[in-house]
């Protein structure tokens, strides 16, 4: 029998090669699923950001008097259909700075939440000095 000089792959080499391919494809799949998760979250986040901005504007349009004593209808609620899946909460409090108000909006839905923080200058309460 002639001496066999045509070496093929050893089983170990083939296993290692398959392992490398397997790890590489698992990493690619994981990246893809991460992209999918991000894509699924994006419309909800965009919507929540727009809704939070809307509530913030509602606060900015208030008179200083209303801002000091926020009406209940502006403290929290659900958005009207078709955006009823989103719930909002608003708060306005006097900042450490004189005549500055801290405004905060929280929008929450089943998949997450979004917060918007801002400040607004409000003329101090008028006191009659005479």
């Amino acid at each position: 029998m002639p001496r066999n000089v045509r070496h093929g792959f050893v089983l170990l080499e083939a296993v290692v090669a398959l392992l490398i391919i397997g790890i590489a494809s698992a990493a690619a799949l994981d990246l893809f699923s991460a992209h999918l998760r991000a894509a699924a979250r994006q419309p909800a986040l965009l919507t929540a950001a727009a809704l939070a901005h809307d509530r913030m504007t509602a606060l900015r349009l208030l008179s200083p008097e209303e801002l000091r004593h926020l009406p209940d209808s502006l403290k929290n609620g659900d958005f009207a259909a078709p955006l009823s899946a989103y719930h909002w909460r608003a708060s306005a409090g006097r900042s450490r700075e004189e005549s500055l108000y801290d405004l905060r909006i929280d929008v929450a839905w089943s998949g997450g939440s979004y917060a918007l923080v801002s400040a607004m200058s409000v003329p101090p309460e008028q006191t009659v000095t005479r």
Partner: protein
Amino acid sequence: MSRRGLTAVELVVALAVTGLAAVIGSATLSLLADRRAPLLETSSPTEHAAAVRRTVIGWLEDAHGALSPFSGSSVAAFELLDLRDHGRAADQLLFTTSAATPLGSADALIRLYVDSDERTPERGLVAELSAWPGAAVTRMELDSTVSELDVRCLTGLAGSRRWLPTFLSSQAVPRGLELRLRAARGRELAPLLQLPIRVALEAGR
């Protein structure tokens, strides 16, 4: 040393196993890809609606009462007209803004209205931009499903805060604005456009 290579049978079996794994993997991948398609479909109208809101709010927030040096004295700096067209609200807003527009970063005159004119290519909510009164206009179709525009403005003149359907001034801008959009019968606006667009004007404070 008995380093023997794989026989053909072993190699074929190994390839068959790999092939099977690849088939299962690609089937899972296509299942994921199918789930992806509707996601992107819903994401795109949301993106569009959010962009329309951002654009309109950005322009109006920076609306100001100062007339551009090119304008004649007959032009109002801020104009909200309460109009109706075939029973539908067809309000018009005309204002000068210092916000960045497709025309550039200089002041722009913007007319916001609902275009129901069959002869123009634009439909729905349209913005007409010009660098000064009488200059060439650039039209931008913001959303083609809009068929009604109903605007009211918050004025804080003399301490009395009121929502009014019209506003006309050569110097002042209102404190706030609320734009309500409605779609034509049988069509539906994107959810974000069904929510009124509220704006607090910087110059109106």
